């Protein structure tokens, strides 16, 4: 048996990605369908010298990872719908204070406690706008276990690069299903380490003074430098400020550091796109059904392809516009009421040729579900 091959659940693939990326600390509270992430990290983290804490609730879990990250640790928590709602205030705090952290949200049906053991992709917009106020955020997703692993590593890397919370938007089907994962050798995938200040003890350290490249070197809190951290608008020392210039500059910085890097953050896969007349835009487990359908229709000579999104936020508007430029119609396949569809409509030149193929009953959308709508769009009857 090869050491590097596993046959595991998607949630375990996320755990292996986190371990590979160098996670030091996890705090969480069990919630279906994400629980296996906590369960396996409880076993894996002590093996790598890391720490695992089951906290008293979702809010405390989010706050614990923020605190741990500030002291220099790579951190993650895992949750699902209702827990993701509870974490939102603290996610906003991490945005404002620019503390790297990864939040895995294995989506279930909502709102409220909703449909815990069944699949949904209803938290797309919550990932973007769940916390209040202007801000930007990174959210990644995946449709198979290899990509769950890769996106988890990317999430840790992006959290460090941009000093921001990164949301992993998985779903119940991918989280619970078992399939093959090949774990790359050490060094095969790049790992971004914490950017620490080179300033020594006793030298003035400005925690919120960006370098020329926009990045802010950190100093492990409780270590060599004393500084302030607050959720209020703050100056370069981290002290609260309502100076209009300071407020203006900080808010623009929080948004620009992500929105100006959309191209670097964008992750996607093309399946049979080269000459596709009909393009399905999809992500997560629904992309599996879209790809299945595309393969079947291709075998029958139809020019159909799939644009699989792996980064949802910041939305890769330009990329989607370019890829869909020659399509007769675009079919967005997702398991919600059209959350990504709205983004695709805003991105393409002919929004009236963008259609939603969805399913919201807790069942994985099937290739047959998509095919029914596709036939109507193609003018081939019902």
């Amino acid at each position, binding site marked *: *048996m*090869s050491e590097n*091959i596993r*046959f595991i659940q998607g949630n375990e693939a996320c755990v292996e990605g986190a371990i590979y990326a160098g996670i030091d600390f996890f705090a969480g509270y069990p919630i*279906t*369908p994400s629980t296996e992430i906590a369960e396996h990290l409880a076993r894996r983290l002590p093996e790598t010298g890391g720490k695992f804490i089951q906290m008293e609730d979702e809010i405390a879990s989010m706050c614990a990872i923020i605190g741990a990250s500030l002291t220099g640790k790579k951190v993650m928590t895992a949750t699902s719908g209702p827990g993701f709602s509870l974490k939102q205030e603290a996610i906003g705090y991490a945005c404002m204070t620019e503390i790297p952290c990864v939040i895995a949200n294995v989506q279930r049906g909502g709102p409220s406690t909703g449909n*815990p*053991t*069944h699949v949904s992709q209803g938290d797309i917009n919550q990932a973007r706008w769940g916390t209040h106020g202007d801000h930007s955020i990174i959210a990644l997703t995946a449709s198979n276990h290899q990509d769950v692993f890769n996106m988890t590593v990317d999430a840790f890397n992006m959290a460090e690069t941009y000093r921001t919370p990164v949301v992993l938007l998985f779903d*119940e*089907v991918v989280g*619970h*299903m*078992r*399939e*093959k994962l090949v774990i790359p050798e050490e060094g095969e995938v790049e790992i971004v380490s914490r950017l620490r200040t080179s300033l020594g003890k006793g030298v003035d350290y400005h925690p919120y003074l960006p370098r020329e490249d926009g990045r802010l070197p950190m100093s492990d809190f409780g270590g060599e430098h004393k500084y302030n951290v607050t959720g209020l608008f703050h100056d370069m020392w981290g002290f609260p400020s309502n100076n209009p210039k300071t407020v203006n500059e900080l808010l623009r910085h929080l948004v620009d550091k992500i929105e100006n890097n959309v191209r670097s953050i964008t992750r996607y896969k093309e399946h049979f796109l080269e000459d596709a007349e009909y393009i399905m835009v999809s992500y997560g487990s629904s992309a*599996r*059904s879209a*790809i*299945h359908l595309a*393969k079947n229709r291709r075998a029958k000579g139809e020019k159909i392809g799939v644009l699989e999104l792996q980064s949802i936020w910041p939305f890769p508007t330009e990329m989607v516009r370019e890829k869909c430029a020659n399509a007769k119609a675009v079919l967005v396949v997702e398991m919600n009421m059209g959350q990504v569809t709205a983004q695709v409509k805003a991105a393409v030149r002919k929004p009236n040729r963008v259609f939603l193929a969805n399913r919201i009953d807790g069942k*994985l959308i*099937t*290739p047959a579900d998509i095919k029914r709508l596709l036939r109507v769009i193609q003018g081939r009857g019902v």
Partner: protein
Amino acid sequence: MNRVRLVFSGSGGQGVITAAIILAEAAVMYDGKNATQSQSYGAAARGGGTRSDIIISDQEINFPEVRQPNVLVCLTQDAYNTYSSIVRPGGLLLTDTKFVKTTKKVDARQVELPLFEEVMAKIGKPVVFNICVLGALVGITEVIRPKSVMSAVADRVPRDFLELNNEALDLGFTLGAESQ
């Protein structure tokens, strides 16, 4: 076989899901194939009906659910009543004589074996019934190499119980092979 779709069905506690995981794991870890295994979650997993879908293929597997299984295993009457009609024409329907009384003819090869009774008579431990079913399946079909299943069982079962499980696997394999 290029692509095999299987459905294991029964009730919570019979080890249906464990058997499904071991089979798919064997395909990936020891036969170098791709496989997906998914299952019903929720209250149904405890005492109610359980179902697990497995796809084994040389190629990439996208849609992980099974509509028409090439191989359908039913270990309770409820599972049989619910699922027997979905078996793919020309496929295989495997049932246990103690738990399932077959009532209708399906367009598939029906194999009814006294697996549970044989486990109780020869081994005396109901807990290895699921492994015996797996053995029977491997004895009847060529879904996967018997040696691969043995290795996967060894990976998953605590060492003290390995011999017991191997006995059950052998027993099932013999009963399955003899039925052909």
